[in-house]
Every structure is written in structure tokens, then in C-alpha cells.
């Protein structure tokens, strides 16, 4: 078994086979850091294909799950801080009154594939919940998605609450979602507007001044 075969299994989204090959590679003495490095490249390629819709969401999600399974399995073999060190901690959710989730979920997968630590607080999330969860996590970024014009004001409320509590400078606030725009981000004082899910990891990494692969 080779790392190439593992990469192909992850590309196919075959979780069981991916774990099986990874186990054999580790037992055979392959450095887990090399495995993770290769898989990161594969996920980057899969993300690119998805952004061009050469593959669709189910295929990308399956690959993401396959990679996550391998990384989780190898965790005991990797010394703390050696690999997969967090590029940033993110609280991610869809704002109050809004039940849409697909964009948020794609962003979550892409961020995790790029070694961000993400806590997904779900849909219909109260602005205070974003702030409390960010405090509890020690987050770097608060990411708020909105799919409806009438729920966009709740993105602003998150910023207002941060200001009221003297926490505004502690977190970067990132917004996204179909009706949102750079103009809206500027109007409410958000730190970043993500026009689509594919750009989120790079833009967020730049926001935190971290180079992403």
C-alpha cells in the first residue's frame, strides 16, 4: 500500500478503505506527517474541483469525511503541535431566524480541511450565543451566515453586542451568505466578507495573517 493509494481512496470518499490503508502505512513505518501533508494536497485539489463544480457536494463531503477519519485515527501517533496545528479557531453559525445551513456546512468542511478548528453552533443562532461560544472556545473568528434579507441585521447585532461588551477587538467577525455583500460588511463594520465558500479558508487565513497552503 502506498500514500498514492490512500489519496485515491480519500478522493473516492471511501472511509473504511482510507483508514485501512492509513493503518497499514503507519504500521509499515510511514511518517504520519507525510500522510497528512499528502492528504492536504488531495483535499485542496478536491476543493478546487468542487469550486468548478467538476464534482458535487456529496462527493466532496465524502472525501472530507474520509480524510477526517484518517486524521482522527492517526492522532495518537502525532505528537502535540507536530501537525494539524490549528490555523485559527472559528465559531460558525447561521444567524437568528434563519434556518438555512448548506453554505455554512460547506464552509465548515473547507475550513476543517485547511486545519482550522471549527465549532458549528447550528442554524437560528441568537447573536449572544455567537459571543458566548466564542468566549468559551477562545475563538479567533466569529463566522455568521445569513441567507435572508430579514435575517442580515442579526449579523450586525453580533458586532453591536461585541462592542457593548468591550470585546470587539478580541474577535474577527466574518460574514457571508447569498444576500450579503462587501457593501453590507462595510456598513456593519465586519472584518471580512466571504463571497463564496471556496474562498473562505484563504481569506480567513489572510485575515489572521497566516499563510494557507
Amino acid at each position, binding site marked *: 500500500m502506498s500514500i498514492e493509494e490512500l489519496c485515491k481512496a480519500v478522493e473516492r470518499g471511501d472511509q473504511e478503505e482510507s483508514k485501512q490503508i492509513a493503518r497499514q502505512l503507519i504500521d509499515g513505518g510511514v511518517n504520519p506527517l507525510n500522510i497528512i501533508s499528502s492528504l492536504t494536497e488531495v483535499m485542496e485539489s478536491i476543493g478546487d474541483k468542487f469550486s468548478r*463544480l467538476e464534482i458535487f457536494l456529496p462527493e466532496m463531503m465524502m472525501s472530507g469525511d474520509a480524510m477526517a477519519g484518517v486524521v482522527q485515527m492517526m492522532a495518537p501517533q502525532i505528537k502535540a503541535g507536530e501537525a494539524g496545528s490549528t490555523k485559527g479557531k472559528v465559531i460558525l453559525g447561521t444567524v437568528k431566524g434563519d434556518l438555512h445551513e448548506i453554505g455554512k456546512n460547506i464552509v465548515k468542511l473547507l475550513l476543517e480541511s485547511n486545519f482550522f478548528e471549527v465549532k458549528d453552533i447550528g442554524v437560528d443562532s441568537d447573536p449572544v450565543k455567537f459571543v458566548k461560544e466564542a468566549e468559551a472556545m477562545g475563538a479567533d473568528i466569529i463566522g455568521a451566515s445569513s441567507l435572508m434579507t430579514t435575517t442580515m441585521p442579526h449579523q450586525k447585532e453580533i458586532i453591536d453586542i461585541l462592542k457593548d461588551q468591550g470585546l470587539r477587538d478580541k474577535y474577527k467577525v466574518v460574514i457571508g451568505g447569498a444576500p450579503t455583500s462587501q457593501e453590507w460588511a462595510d456598513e456593519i463594520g465586519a472584518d471580512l466578507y466571504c463571497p463564496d465558500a471556496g474562498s473562505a479558508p484563504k481569506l480567513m487565513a489572510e485575515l489572521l495573517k497566516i499563510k494557507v497552503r
Partner: protein
Amino acid sequence: MSNPYRLWEILKRSNTGAFCDEDDFLPKVFAPKVKEVIKKYEIKYDPKTPVPADDDLADRVWMAGWELFRDVGLYNTDTHRIIKLSDEEIKEALYTASDRYWVGAGKDAVLWKHRKVEDSEPPFCIYSPDCPVSEELHYSMTLAYLQEPLLDGLCAPILEESMGEKVRSASPFEINGCTQHIYNMRLAAKQVGRPGVFFVAVGTAEHDSGQIAVSNNEWGVRTTDTRIIGTLTEFKTSDSLLNRAVHCLQYGCYNGNLTGPIYGGWCGGSEGVAVSLVAYSLNGLCIYGSIFNQHFPFHLNYGSNTTRELLWPIAVAGQAMARNSKLLYTSNGFANAGPMTEMVFYETACHALVSTVSGWHLWEMASARNKYRNRATPMEARIGMEVGHAVARQEMTREEANEITLKLLEKYERRAADAPKGKEYQECYHVDTALPTQEHYDMYRKIKDEIAHMGIEFPF
């Protein structure tokens, strides 16, 4: 649930249906079933033929959609249970559904009927800007749409502010905004002499409380009007959405099921979108008790549905439902380009053409992907409705429609990703009279004449 006695029998399944972890529903239940039925029924997208004329393909898409709905059901995100129906119940709902409804009131009432493939009966035309609008323009824009000659129904723009405050979902400002929204519609309808015109209202309400607050036969949303109730993408609902269904049925107004299957998302590609459109229509009928289904399939990256990978599923799903049911369903256009651009006229004409010959009714037009406030006008919707009337009257075949579609796609498809945003309403309409500027009208007329030369016989 087309008969009220099924209301509670079916809704109880929200609490008693099979439990499913929400994280598992789409990847483990929905997506594999979509792939399975596409393979089983041999459904294959052909980019060279955006308007297929293949009855057998349409019938297979119908069967695939039926199987998808029956086996996947509808997931309630509040109870984490799946509402499912049997074949017998789906058949019963289809049998008892009416193929026509009188909508609107008095002299403005219109009979809305099921259409067939290549039907000579013009489509029912619902005009809708689908975009948010600032408070100072909401009334004028509502008036502008209501002055459209081919309008059968209106869904007014979403009110962005009320009394200077941003309308926030689930807050008192939403209820206030919804009240202002429907009053604007009622006054505008009276002023143009169409007091009983059919409304789809109110789009400002995202939360159930906003919808319920404006149910009133005297000043609000009447029992001769309709609401649209969303199904979350994909195949999910919530108690808040079911509240709306129950309210509409008990209040006595019509309701429509609003769905937006995503090309590139959990449905996969064009085949999955087509099958999902059929399945969503059965969901609307059986679970929400909807008299019509309002569909806006869209492209994950563009947020539009005028490129061929979306026109194909619109065509085959429309034909599937036209041939196998007596349902009513509207095709909701989402254009890449914005108002007063040549591109938005081509896009709308193309969307309306494909939809009309395939059995759909029309709901036009979300310009600039309905992303930007004030960026919609009745003129782009007008050209779509006129195309719809024309191709129905001349009994255009799908083969003829396919040829014209390919010519229209040539005009705009390569610009989908970076389409021009166009102008805002007040830049191409006179706000006081709610009429288009001469420049805007001239552009519309030029494109209409060009399209006429392609083979569309406009009656005027």
C-alpha cells in the same frame, strides 16, 4: 393532505416518524437515494439539448421523483423525525387535488389551470422582483408591477426597512414591516383599479409570526390570496414552517410550496435537480397541502438558473409533471444580470420560453440573482411573460423551442459568471409615475424585436 382530514394524520408523523440524526439525513439518506434513482431510471443530462422532447425521459423523471419522495420523506429539524407517505397516500393526494383554482377576488379573479406540454393555453403569470427594496421605493415598485398588462398575480418586493428600522426576522419590526408591506400592496392595487388582484404575500415575513399577523380579509392577506411556505434545502422542514401550513389551511387561504434545489449541492447535477423538482412537488401537495409549487432551482456558484445545466432540469421536470399529474407549478427565474442590461432580457426570455413549452406557469424575474437591493424592474419580467404568451399561442413545439434556446444561450451564457449588475429601480424607472424611462423601454423593445426575428410571434 389535499383533503383537510389528512392534516393531523400526516403532521403527527413529525413526532412519530423514524428518528434520524440531522447530520446523517443528507449524506446518508438523501444523496445516496438521488444517485440510486438516477441510475435506476437511466436519467442522463444532455447539454446539447436544453429542451428535450423525450416523453419517455419525462416519465422516468416522474417515477424517479416519486420514489425519491416516498423513500426519503421530509425531515423535521425540530423533532429530528422523518415524515413519510405511502404510495397509496400519494396517489390519493394526486387524485383528490384539483387541476384548477379561482384565485383573486371579484372582477380580478382568475382561473388558474394545470398546463400540458406544448399547451396553447398561456401560462399564469406571477410577477415578482424577488429582491429587497428600500422603504422609500417599495410602494412605487409595487405600483409599477401592478401596472403590467399580463399580470395574473403579484409577489411584491421584500421591504427592507419599516419606519426607518431594518426589518429583522422574528422581531416586532418584522410584524410592523409585514403590515406596511400588505398595506402598500392593497393601496397600489386599488389605485391601478385592480382591487381584487391575486397576491402572493407577504415576502417580508421570514418568520411564521409575520405571516400570521397579516391574515385579514379586510386589509391584509385575503383568503383569495396565497402564501408560500418554504421547504429547506434539501427536503427539510421545521415546526415554524409547518405552523404556516396549518395556519393557511385553517385561515382558508391558498398556499404554495417554495423550493430551491441546488445544482452542485446535495442533489448533485442536472439529473438530481430534475428528480428533486418532481419530489418537491409531491411534498408540497402531500405535506403542506399546497395548491401550487413554486420552484427556483439554482446554480451553487452563480445563484441563477438561466444556464443550460439548469434549463435542462426545468424542462424535463416540467414535462414530467405536466404529463403525469394535474398539479400547478411555477418556474421562478433567477437571472445573472441586473436591470436595464441586454443580458437580463435575453436570460428572462430564454427561461420563460423553456418553462412555457414544458408545462410550467411563470414567476419572473429575480434579476442580478436577487442579491442586491432595488435591482429589479417589471420590464425584464414583462419580456418573459410576453414570450410565455407568444409561444403558447403559436403552439410552439419543444424542438422549435430548443433551437431558439440555443440561439439565446449564445447571447449570454459565457457571461454568466461575471454578468453586469445593471441599474437600480430608481435609475431606470420614474419613481413618481412608476413607469420605465424611455431609455429602458427602448432597450426592452430592441431586444423584443430581435427575439421576434428568432421565431417568437408576439401578439403585440
